């Protein structure tokens, strides 16, 4: 594995990790923009724009983009989060020139009016689709509630109303302001020729307008609260809770990940043994979500409606015990082994390395090899976990529930 980087004159940064043993390669453009960079009026524009990227530019129509990506057998897609819009393709190394031109072309789409009008229907369908998925509905409502008043609380999809009202002119303006070279990172992983990458980048991206984009990354200060969204025809109760945790650039983030494995992994964790193994709930998990400047512990529970309040109270007890007594050496060592195995296994494919490569750069401005991550993981001690818990105790500050219940009256804990 070998890391190389370069910055074009217009500010586009190229980062690459070369793996001569790989059979394939992956390229991805990471645009540092997402729903947190929107205003209420244009809510959902980042995600809608990501769809519009595939409608082509001056050279290629939508049909061409889709056809050529298929002709070279590319696995390609795009995604939009609160903070990053990324466009990527996994390909065989011999197809790099065609793939590069097409994926780079996604960053400068024409945004034709008729395509915009047609794609609006697809976006509205996507919103409707997620309405039929309780766990997604829950996440969306959770983010809005926990980060209320903070940019992270802005919906990725937008609402049917904001999408219906959005104009192509507003999208063009958003694109002009956010898709500037200094706000884009090109990541490449796998088996490729660095010189060729540079030549293609000069040719396809050298003309992009320069520019930087500011983003306010103040740490969210959520207020405690509980929101219940009754859904009469639902059978299970779906519940999510969030509480502040280390942000993406915090040195405590590795400890937070290990802590989440110990307390709320989907197997072998404290929550698993206490709640899932006895069959009291279907799912009880804890995750660490990291964002630019903020972070959260996210608790997810799916249980029978009559069981959910007690389950949340028991989770509260687990968190209280961890906050006051910490975890054991045995738990820590086991969680480190689990996490290390995950790091190694997910790094075998260029496509998954690409995500980590791009994410590390956007959030932390740094390159981290698999070995770097493994070494940091191995170095975590009980003292680090204590430091984490002192700064960010586990908690259940914001609660959102979707299901048959009209209210949650049980003892929902709030960290002191």
């Amino acid at each position, binding site marked *: 594995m070998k890391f190389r980087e370069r910055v074009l004159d217009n500010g586009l940064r190229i980062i690459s990790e070369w793996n001569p043993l790989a059979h394939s390669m992956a390229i991805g453009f990471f645009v540092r923009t997402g729903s947190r960079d929107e205003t209420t009026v244009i809510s959902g524009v980042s995600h809608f724009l990501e769809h519009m990227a595939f409608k082509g530019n001056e050279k290629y129509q939508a049909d061409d983009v889709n056809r050529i990506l298929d002709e070279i*057998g590319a696995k390609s897609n795009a995604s939009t989060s609160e903070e990053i819009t990324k466009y990527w393709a996994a390909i065989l190394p011999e197809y790099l020139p065609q793939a590069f031109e097409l994926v780079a072309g996604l960053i400068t789409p024409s945004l034709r009016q008729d395509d915009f009008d047609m794609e609006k229907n697809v976006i509205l369908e996507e919103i409707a689709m997620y309405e039929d998925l309780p766990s997604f509905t829950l996440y969306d409502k959770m983010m809005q509630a926990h980060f209320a008043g903070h940019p992270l609380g802005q919906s990725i999809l937008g609402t049917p109303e904001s999408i219906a009202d959005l104009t192509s002119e507003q999208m063009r303006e958003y694109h002009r302001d956010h898709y500037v070279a200094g706000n884009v990172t090109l990541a490449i992983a796998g088996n490729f020729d660095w010189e060729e990458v540079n030549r293609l980048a000069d040719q396809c991206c050298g003309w992009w307008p320069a520019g930087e984009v500011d983003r306010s990354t103040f740490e969210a200060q959520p207020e405690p609260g509980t929101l219940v969204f009754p859904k009469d025809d*639902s059978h*299970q109760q779906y519940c999510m809770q969030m509480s502040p945790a280390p942000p993406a650039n915090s040195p405590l983030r590795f400890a937070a990940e290990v802590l989440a494995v110990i307390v709320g992994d989907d197997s*072998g964790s404290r929550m698993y043994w206490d709640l899932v193994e006895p069959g009291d709930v279907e799912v009880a998990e804890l995750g660490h979500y990291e964002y630019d400047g903020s972070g959260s512990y996210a608790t997810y529970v799916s249980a029978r409606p009559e069981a959910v309040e007690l389950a949340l109270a028991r989770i509260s007890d687990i968190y209280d015990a961890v906050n006051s007594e910490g975890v054991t050496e045995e738990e820590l060592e086991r969680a480190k082994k689990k996490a290390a195995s995950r790091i190694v296994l997910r790094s075998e494919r260029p496509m998954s390395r690409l995500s980590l490569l791009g994410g590390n750069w956007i959030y932390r401005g740094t390159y981290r090899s698999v070995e770097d991550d493994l070494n940091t993981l191995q170095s975590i001690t009980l003292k680090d976990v204590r430091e984490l818990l002192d700064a960010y105790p586990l908690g259940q500050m914001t609660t959102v529930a979707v299901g048959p219940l009209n209210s949650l009256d049980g003892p929902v804990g709030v960290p002191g």
Partner: protein
Amino acid sequence: MQTQQIEVKTWENGLTLAVERMPSVGSAAFSILVPGGSNYDPREKRGTATALSELLMRGAGDRDSRQLSSALDDLGVQRHNGAGSSHVSFGGATLSDSIHDALRIFADVIRRPWIPDDHFAAVRSGIEQSLLSVEDEPRQKLMVELWQRTFDAPWGLSSDGSLECLPNLTIDGVQGHYEQCFRPNGTIIGVAGNVDIAQLQATIDELFGDWEPRPEPTFETTPHGPSIDAIEHDSAQTHIGLAYPSVPYRDENYYAAWAAVSVLSGGMSSRLFTEVREKRGLCYAISASLNTLPHEARVVCYAGTENDRAQETLDVTLHEIHRLGQGITDEELNCCKARAKSALIMQQESAMSRSGSIARDWYHLQRIVTLSEVRSKIDALDVSHVLDFVHQHPPRDLTILTIGPKPLEVPSEIS
């Protein structure tokens, strides 16, 4: 394409081990198929095999549930287990150094399980909640119901059973299922990764070589549910499921069948994506795939559309399925071939994917298909071959199921 090093060994007791050595990865993965799936569940006790697969992980050999889980975690084994129609399966991946120890633990799980009484209620409760969650997600529910209406029982029945059957499950029934079905004859172990083939064969010999074979149990098949049906549900979208017969993996025309589905729904330039989503904006999710059992197969399509436009989605989808027989272009077939070639080469980067593939190959074909063999079969396809296949296997005997506020109109000539 690199030459693959694959070796297969079948023991006298009928257990087969297929190993693929992948020197460029650092991991090793396994896929173990034991022929005791939900097909063997008594019809009124559906879900028994699933309950068994859960209970098997709750104590085996000299380890209780926690010790078992901890031992696997200490080896860094990422794993999953579950019951399908034909097998109870165990899959996992870890660093290649740990593969032998991981297999030792799974040998305990498969041969020396506790199947503890005192965990039965908890396991049943977990299955019940998982069934309730399916009720809450119309798309998942649609697929479960569609399967039951297109494949004869028990092949089409959900391995999780049903809310009606679940109270009938007993621990005695679960233990009996183990006694009756778990056996070496028909068990397939696929391992892929950075492993030494001879060493692995020796480990499997030690762990499973003395396992006594048992007679193969039987099950009865009964007809599937109604072909044209609608389930009323107050959902945001109408969820449309559609299925029609194709040929299974073992059929000589399988790759032509695969190409036909791939033209319909292989990539972003495929027909359903282009006609239903790109040109008409009717849905976000639309797909078709070829689903194969050993003896039969179906093309299964899904689309989800807001209720007032759902009829148009169904009409356009049906039109595209029927239009396939009118012609396929070279360009379309070339796209399918290119996608297949990439996918095959990328498979060589994933031990998990290869271990699953070689185990499935053995189950369906009793041999392992190398990636270069697949490649040459796909390269050999031409448009006339694929079209001949479509003409010989037109979309007929369709199963159509919708879940949404109101039923859709199904053209009478296909019902």
